């Protein structure tokens, strides 16, 4: 017991000394920012030293912990929220350019940028409406196709034992270790041969076609559905197709939702492949278009970003339960 008591006393002493030191240093420091920081530190330490004298040992420890926890929480939340807030406010700025900002925030606000985003394409330079429709088309099609393919692959790899199963497993494992867009040159040539360069369908085929590579998360999920159910249905004479559509699919709603979300979010925010395959500005997706905007069009960038980020953020928040499920399923299975 005396041990703990000594510890608290010594902590109090250290806080007192450090606080005084910080106070002295802050007083001596010439610089504005440094001085403010040091004085804040001094204030913090001295308040704690004083409080610990007034409060008892136990309640002091608890209060100390509470206040510290919330201070850190507020700081962390600010770090995460501030950039988002900055972007949102910038999207409502009256003047479009980054150069007009005084510090972080625009001098005047209006909703004009959101209106011009869709009505004015700056002489064909930034046709946001077309981009948005393109993105919607590519994302929805690859979401549907990709989800079907991944779910099928994951299910088959989980439930069936067949010749070549290990070969498939090992091939995907090795392929996954190659840097993602290592084959970009080849993809361009293939799409050129297929006559799909500058076509949105090229992207849909690409996203959906490569999606089954990431089947492990889905396999991990299907592994958790008891085999007994499968066998019981088999004995009752159900075919494999029936088992899949009537038993497995209804049970896998969380995994289907997670897969669909991931398959949707990827094309929604990918820049590289569209940049490689789509050469005309009118064929671009929003991500490529936003990436091409300079500082003169900062407000337009911010408005465009907010507009495509909002739906996906809402989706994430509604489905956060499923995402955590998917993340941990992937984590534990490796």
């Amino acid at each position, binding site marked *: 017991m005396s041990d703990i008591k000594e510890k608290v006393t010594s902590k109090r002493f250290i806080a007192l000394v450090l606080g005084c030191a910080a106070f002295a240093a802050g007083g001596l420091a010439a610089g*504005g920012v440094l001085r403010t920081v040091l004085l804040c530190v001094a204030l913090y330490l001295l308040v704690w030293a004083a409080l610990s004298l007034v409060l008892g040992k136990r309640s002091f420890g608890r209060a100390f912990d509470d206040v510290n926890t919330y201070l850190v*929480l507020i700081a*962390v*939340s600010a770090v*995460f929220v501030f*950039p*988002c807030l*900055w972007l949102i406010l910038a999207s409502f700025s009256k003047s479009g350019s*980054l150069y007009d*900002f*005084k*510090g972080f925030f625009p001098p005047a606000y209006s909703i004009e940028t959101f209106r011009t985003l869709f009505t004015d394409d700056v002489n064909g330079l930034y046709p946001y409406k077309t981009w948005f429709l393109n993105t919607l088309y590519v994302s929805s099609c690859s979401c549907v196709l990709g989800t079907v*393919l991944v779910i*099928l692959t994951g299910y088959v790899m989980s439930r069936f034992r*067949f010749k070549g199963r290990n070969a498939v497993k090992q091939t*995907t494992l090795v*392929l996954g*270790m*190659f840097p*993602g*867009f*290592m*084959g970009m*040159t*080849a993809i361009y*040539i*293939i799409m050129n*041969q297929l006559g799909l360069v500058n076509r949105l369908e090229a992207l849909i*085929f*690409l996203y*959906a*076609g*490569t999606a*089954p*590579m990431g089947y492990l998360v889905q396999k991990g999920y299907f592994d958790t559905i008891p085999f007994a159910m499968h066998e019981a249905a088999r004995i009752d004479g159900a*075919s*494999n*197709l029936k088992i*899949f559509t009537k038993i497995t699919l209804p049970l896998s709603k969380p995994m289907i939702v997670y897969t669909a979300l991931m398959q949707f979010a990827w094309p929604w*925010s990918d*820049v590289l492949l569209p940049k*490689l395959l789509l050469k005309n500005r009118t064929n671009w997706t929003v*991500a490529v278009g*936003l*990436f091409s905007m300079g500082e003169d069009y*900062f407000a337009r*960038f911010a408005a465009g*970003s907010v507009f*495509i*980020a909002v739906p*996906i*953020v809402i989706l*994430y*928040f509604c489905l956060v339960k499923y995402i955590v499920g998917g*993340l*941990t399923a*992937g*984590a*534990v299975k*490796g």
Partner: protein
Amino acid sequence: MTTQPAAQKIDVLHCPWRARCSMVVMGMGQLLYGQIVKGLVFLLAECGLLYFFITTGFEYLKGFFTLGTQEENLWLGVKGDNSMTMLILGIFAFILLGFFIILYLVNVHDALSTARDVRAGKPVRHIGRTLDAMADEKFHITALTLPVVGVMIFSILPIVFMILLAFTDLGGSVVYPKLASWSLSAWQKIFSVGQLGATFLKILRWNIVWAVLATAINFFGGLALALLLNKKNVIGKKIWRAFPVLAYAIPGFISMVGFKFMFSQSGPINSLLTQAGKDTIFFLTNDASAKWWARGIGLFVNAWISIPSVMLMATGILGNINTDLYEAADIDGATGMQKFFKITLPFVVFSITPVIIGMFVGSFNNFGIFFFLRSGTYSLYGDYFLASDTDLLINWLYNLSVSNNYYSIGAAISLIIFVITGTLSLAVYVRTAAYKQEDTFQ
């Protein structure tokens, strides 16, 4: 004529003449047995594939080895060969040839099994029965066909192409209309002492430092955040958790480009500095003084984007720790620090070692951060070859093979990246396999 025993083996050497027909002409045996649809499908597939190989496919196969024989000659109006296209079409023809062989074997196998059915007195399977089988016993084949074809064309074909490309001299001055050939020149250039070799070593060194720092920051940051939100005295956990999830949900490129604007030369931070009467800082500008600023900002932005997902994952795992352990530790008078280092950290590290390695590989190949933050510019100083001082190998690979035409060198670098990340992943894979076995022993 002696009656043959029903159990007599039917294999490739001993089989009825009708099945034998399938070995000569695909689908013929099936047609003779009365399986019209299946027979026609095989027959048409053979005709189509043969037509392809006779008209063009054979040329493709030849082109794979020669990489072109006819150089373009504008004076004589001769159309030249394009080595790169020939290489990829050659690989494609090889894949198709493999498919042809497999189809042929399937056809023979199918004819033999029908012959067996006939010998055993069972009725021949007609099209309805075949379709039923595809939905039942052969469900896995039906289901996997489309995914396999997709992965073949869009994943395997490009990767094989890149691997082979590393062993040609394509790129640099050897681009269309010049003809390429098989050679090891890319490897010689990378491992020589020239500017290319020096750039490679510099980038590799920074890449390793980056991967270690980024993984450590993201892992411990995410874990710390999860622990903080898990504390008993935090009220409104859901609300606090919403802030990091917000950062996680925003599409990555928006965050990265947004941060680029924030730290840009005329961005808000520099504008505040000027207002305070200070000089602007070159955060991400193409300038020698920006080197460590840009690297630091890269680490920060990467953490901002990745920590929330680690936090979500760690929260899930922390929920699995047996709370009895903590109670026992409390009774023994352990401090918070001790509990963290002796219980929490080992548990989390052991349950997600594969994920940590996955994070390391992901950080090692993190293309987006510096591509978006610095827009893929090349340093004008410091003697880098088509790279900037913040670029990772993967950015350099992009600069070389997509933005400029150094195809074979880019391909060689991607093979090096593969060896590095592959060795790491393999080591972990073996380890987790052992770990799983350990579990079965318990």
